[in-house]
């Protein structure tokens, strides 16, 4: 079989961050290759490099033996590389049929032939009944299918599918899987990124695993799923089990023991059958969970399952479509974000989200913007500086000049400045070096020992479950499992949710 795509030492830098790190990759004609890896592994960036949406930092790309490293995106499309976008990019005000016609014209300059070809694709994709609807009126499932359909109008030799199944309900997902098989049977070569492991394990001839931009494993689905490196990349390390420090100023309570007895006065966070969506894209379908005072609760699940969305919904950065979010006696789902903070619910967002052009101290001071906390500002500042002595040293430095670990500490410190009763942490260990990860988990335990309730979203599942009193597992926008942290650690269910085996 001839080679369709090959990359040599492909590398992409964003500022100092290596998003794709010397990736060597080859795909043979007719293959379906699954590209997997945890959040931030560089999968979509890799697609952007291959499709020409981004320029490479170094390395080379060959398509059917021909170098395309510096060819613009539209030339690559002409050569036969079709792609979908993870963040869907339909032409919203054109009809579905017109969306396809745009691509069909590339191979069929004659209008009659182009319409005919677009009609054929629309039938094959089962979109015929929506042909005259505008693309923006489609549901998520419809738009995802439109993404695939539009790429198909190019009659691509190589098709890059970026998360075309995630977010669909089981019936829709089954339909799309069937379609992908049919596309392959018609002769296209496919590389797909997909978070739903069942799908990718079932469809792929071969799987390539990226982690932190590097190609860490490759093989058949079975080989990959049992590869210890892959399991570590997905579920985190076992290290640190015994590194947990003894508490210094409060009686060390073994993790796993329920703290609610000690702090039964504070409010409970309760989500009841919550649904939420980004525009038309529904992410949460049925999320019910409870975080009781003094608890450390972890929320885990695969990429795209709805962890961050759950936190954003509580913080009211996202509207609650249906269901209730309650904190004590207050309904959070009716409030604005800053009022939620005022009630004592703080969130440390994924990716830190610092105010990069402000100093460390200014970042912390913004954390105490509320009238309620302004009077306690000095005390809280001292508390944060005691927790993170390094921040005191760097307090005049601009936030953007800190290392990743320091930035994470600052983000947590900023969250503590609002004197929260409940602190939500979103992926605090993401992208950090192993020793820093240790530190972060120590800090999380320290925080809860100070009596602050913690709701933790973490992709380092092993570590998170070890320190959590209880944990919830979320899958495709639904809570599927709940139990004490250490118990879930042994659960095959968890492993299945992440690796699809």
């Amino acid at each position, binding site marked *: 079989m001839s080679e369709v795509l090959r990359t040599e030492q492909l590398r992409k830098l964003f500022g100092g961050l290596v998003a794709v790190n010397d990736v060597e990759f080859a795909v043979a004609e007719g293959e379906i290759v699954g590209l997997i890896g945890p959040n931030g592994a560089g999968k979509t960036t890799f697609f952007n490099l291959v499709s020409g949406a981004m320029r490479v930092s170094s390395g080379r790309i060959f398509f059917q033996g021909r170098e395309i490293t510096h060819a613009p995106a539209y030339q690559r499309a002409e050569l036969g590389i079709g792609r979908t976008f993870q963040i869907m990019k339909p032409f919203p005000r054109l009809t579905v049929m017109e969306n396809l016609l745009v691509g069909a014209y590339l191979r069929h300059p004659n209008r009659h032939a182009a319409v005919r070809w677009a009609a054929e694709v629309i039938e094959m994709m089962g979109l015929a009944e929506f042909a005259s609807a505008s693309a923006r009126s489609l549901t998520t499932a419809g738009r995802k299918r439109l993404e695939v359909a539009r790429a198909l109008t190019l009659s691509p030799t190589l098709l890059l599918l970026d998360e075309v199944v995630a977010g669909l309900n089981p019936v829709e997902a089954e339909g799309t899987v069937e379609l992908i098989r049919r596309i392959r049977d018609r002769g296209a070569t496919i590389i797909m990124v997909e978070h739903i492991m069942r799908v990718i394990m079932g469809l792929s001839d071969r799987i390539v695993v990226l982690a932190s931009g590097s190609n860490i494993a490759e093989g058949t689905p079975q080989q990959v799923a049992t590869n210890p490196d892959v399991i570590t990349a997905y579920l985190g390390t076992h290290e640190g089990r015994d590194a947990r420090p003894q508490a210094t100023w409060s009686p060390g309570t073994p993790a796993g023991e329920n703290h609610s007895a000690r702090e039964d006065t504070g409010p409970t966070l309760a989500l009841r059958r919550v649904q939420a969506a980004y525009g038309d894209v529904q992410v949460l379908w049925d999320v019910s969970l409870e975080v009781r005072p003094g608890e450390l609760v972890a929320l885990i699940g695969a990429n795209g399952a709805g962890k961050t969305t759950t936190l954003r919904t509580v913080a009211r950065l996202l509207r609650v479509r249906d269901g209730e979010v309650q904190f004590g006696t207050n309904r959070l789902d009716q409030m*604005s974000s800053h009022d939620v903070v005022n009630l004592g619910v703080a969130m440390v967002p994924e990716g830190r989200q610092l105010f990069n052009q402000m100093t460390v101290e*200014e970042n912390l001071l913004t954390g105490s913007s*509320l009238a309620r906390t302004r009077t306690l500002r000095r005390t809280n500042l001292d508390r944060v500086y005691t927790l993170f002595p390094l921040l005191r040293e760097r307090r005049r430095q601009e936030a953007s000049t800190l290392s990743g670990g320091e930035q994470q500490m600052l983000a947590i410190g900023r969250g503590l400045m609002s004197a929260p009763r409940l602190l939500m942490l979103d992926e605090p260990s993401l992208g950090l070096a192993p020793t820093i990860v240790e530190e972060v988990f120590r800090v999380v335990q320290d925080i809860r020992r100070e009596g602050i309730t913690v709701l933790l979203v973490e992709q380092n599942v092993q570590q998170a479950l070890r320190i959590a009193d209880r944990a919830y597992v979320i899958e495709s926008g639904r809570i599927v499992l709940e139990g004490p942290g250490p118990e879930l650690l042994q659960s095959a269910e968890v492993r299945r949710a992440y690796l699809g085996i």
Partner: protein
Amino acid sequence: MVEFIQIVVNGIFTGGVYAIIGIGLSLIFGVMRIVNFAHGVFLVVGMFTTLFFFERLHVDPFLVIPLVVLVGGLLGVIVERSLLEPIARAPEHASILMTVGIGLVLSNVLLFTFGDAPQIINTRYSTSTWHLGPITFSTALTISFFLTVVVISGLALLLGRTDLGRAIRAAAQNADAAELQGINTRRVRSLVFGMGFALAALAGALLLPQLFAHPSIGPTYTLKAFIVTVLGGMGNVAGAIGGGLLLGITESLGAAYVSSSYRDVFGLAAFLLVLLLRPAGLFGRSRT
């Protein structure tokens, strides 16, 4: 040499006022992501408000400045709440069209109210000057410049040292994260637009001694505001000070040594070049 210094001094005096205009526009762009095409008209509103108070109350124009600023701020908040907040999530061109429309309505209201004749303010010090060695200073412009320095320093303190200033900067850098710190970003947006309007109105009052006021000169100053902010970097408040001074001096030198009729071309050419070659502005890093 004396002539050169004199020209640069004049440029700095005008540039200071340009900086005030630019800071307002930059704040608005930074926090609201709106390119305010009505900014120059706000300045004209300031001019006519000053004229109005001066003629009706017979108070010195510099003394009515607090009142002018107040009127500007209020108008700004009203405009933001009623016309801009509803389209906060609309596509980008909506806010461009909206501010164009606001500018047209405001300048025509001025036209109906104050008429088509250019107006000028006459005070006892309008023509008086003072000297420092061989350099001549207009008294009115000197007072303007002094006020400019005071206002800009005050703004710097406000933005740099107070909770409100931090809230504004936080909202500009990352609105979601600002909300997560308990900052009411909706209120910050109204406030910032009010400040922008007030600053433009203030600039109008400060420019009044050296200019004819006419309802139609708004777009000229909108353009100057764009030039200042693009030179300094869109959304970069400190850069706007540099941009303002640079524009003032460039205009002054260009008019004196090249051609006064091409005065405005220099600023526009610099604007275009910076847009194309250094979109983050001359004084800043790119914001991501």
